[in-house]
């Protein structure tokens, strides 16, 4: 279009091109600003939702929390008051059982993948572990129901702990492999050079050196299963009283929050909020402890 204006001098043409260029530049600059604004809005929206959830949780939770909550058993329907002491204890029991199942398998697999496995096999196991991580938690519940509850003919703490434990396996495998791999190879070589067999090097040098990271991985996995409800619905099942043995149904905090939240009683709703705040604080504390632990103890990942 510019070229057809035969009469125009070079200066005029330059001017026209310049204005056209300026106009595009302006449009591009405005577009740039608009997108920056939209992207910031996205982040603000996320922050708003998070703060909304946390505010409700803390305000409702702390105002519902009282001493009874930590010391009393649940009251029967219709009676006010009562607490969730058995559910809190139950959650710790279940987590303890889960650690017994998840840690040996996860840690063993992680160490093997880092120290012994050939690359092809390691890649297959990593892939399977990652995929296993994505299996819905309720499916683990069904599996535990089939292999534990049906043969034992009873809902039990053991089956709940088993379900949570196998959920922890892929997470612990991946993190412990990662941290064991980070141990500098000089340490291994120094051990081997002294004539120490490889397995003793692994057990006495490599694993202790990676222990901080491994512990962190275990705690992060623990924090993730601590809030799981779905796999406990038909394994641990819940209990309004103290369980007397591990082969009986057991109460758990997330289960109790669920039961109370969907019940039609105001006092139970209050207790559900109280349970939720205790649960989230527990999860955050385990997580925070893990972060702190890795920051203060892990010598190899900090680059020193």
């Amino acid at each position, binding site marked *: 279009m510019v070229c057809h204006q035969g009469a125009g001098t070079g200066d005029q043409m330059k001017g026209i091109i310049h204005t056209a260029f300026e106009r595009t530049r302006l449009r591009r600059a405005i577009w740039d600003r608009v997108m920056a604004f939209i992207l*910031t809005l996205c982040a603000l929206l996320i922050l708003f939702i998070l703060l909304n959830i946390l505010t409700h949780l803390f305000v409702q939770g702390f105002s519902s929390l009282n001493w009874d909550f930590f010391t009393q058993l649940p009251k029967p329907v219709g009676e006010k008051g009562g607490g969730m002491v058995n559910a809190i204890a139950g959650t710790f029991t279940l987590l303890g059982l889960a650690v017994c199942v998840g840690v040996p398998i996860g840690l063993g697999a992680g160490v093997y993948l880092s120290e012994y496995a050939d690359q092809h096999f390691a890649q*297959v*196991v990593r892939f399977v572990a990652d995929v296993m*991580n*994505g299996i819905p938690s309720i499916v683990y519940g069904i599996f535990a129901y089939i292999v534990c509850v049906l043969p034992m003919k009873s809902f039990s703490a053991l089956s709940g702990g088993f379900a949570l434990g196998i959920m922890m396996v892929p997470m612990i*495998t*991946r993190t412990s492999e990662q941290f064991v791999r980070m141990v500098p190879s000089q340490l291994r070589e120094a051990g081997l050079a002294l004539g120490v067999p*490889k397995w003793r090097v692994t057990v006495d040098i490599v694993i202790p050196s990676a222990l901080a990271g491994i512990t962190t991985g275990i705690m992060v996995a623990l924090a993730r299963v601590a809030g799981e409800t779905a796999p406990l619905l038909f394994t641990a099942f819940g209990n309004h009283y103290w369980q007397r043995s591990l082969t009986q149904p057991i109460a758990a905090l997330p289960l109790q929050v669920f039961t109370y*939240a969907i019940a039609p009683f105001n006092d139970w709703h209050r207790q559900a909020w109280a349970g939720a705040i205790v649960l989230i604080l527990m*999860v955050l504390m385990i997580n925070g402890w893990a972060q702190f632990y890795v920051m203060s103890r892990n010598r190899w990942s900090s680059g020193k």
Partner: protein
Amino acid sequence: MSARTLDKSMMSRQDTSDIVFRRILAVFPISILILVAGIFFQLVSSCLPSLHKFGLGFLFSRVWDPVAENFGALPFIFGTCVTSLVALLLAVPVGVGTAIYLAEYAPPKVSKAISILVDLLAAIPSVIYGLWGIFVLVPYMRTTVQPFLGKYLGFLPFFQGPNYGVSFLSASIILAIIIVPFIISVSREVILAVPSVYKESAYALGTTRWEAVYDIVLSYGRVGILGAVVLALGRAIGETMAVTMIIGNNAVITPSLFSPGYTLASVLANEFAEATTDIYLSSLIEIGLVLFLVSIIVNILARILIWSVTKGPVQVIK
């Protein structure tokens, strides 16, 4: 010669102990493989009665009648698809937008702080999202959002129908909130993995920041971001508690997002412990099998996409 014999004897001693240790340790990774295979076979063998009785029709039948012992999973499959897709529609733009903001726009300190908060969001157990959903989101949906949508977009079939607050839409929103941290953290990893030399070249050619992001970063990282989205889809499909608490538990197939619905995972959560007859239990386990297979497929796809960008496995689950 003697040194060599010594060497040999030491070697052989080490070899035996090492071989034993190695064999013992190998049990653990193999047990992971066996575990996944075991879950599959246990699910299949436990749902054989239902497989025999209903065959493939199980997936296409709308009937769910425990009394007449006639079961079909179509309404639940429909519910899972609808809630997951609407959740993705809501979560993907916001999540990817936030990830871009964190990786490219925000000052490092702000980015760090928001990333910590996003991790916090990911750490909240789903039953707590459900609690918040029941007492905050559902009343808000009933009094404000759904009437508003009904008024202005009511000509669409999606926004017609009853207004209880518990609905496909509420469940989709809670799902979106649950999956958005995963989309953010994985997309952020992917965006940060784009070599900065590409961006710098773009800037050197005079592009604006958005042009560099859109033309360079997003086109380089789109496969990985797609992986993040598919991973999030896997989460959404399997998410149980929060959805069960606010979807309304009503097995219907309807275009209306305001209608109470049901999903694969929530029917398991509600009915599994109460299943009395063998065929009822076996049908529920078959639903579990469907959930298992779909999540495996979705996750394999996601891992392939993410691994192809980051050139190997990354720790993406926080």
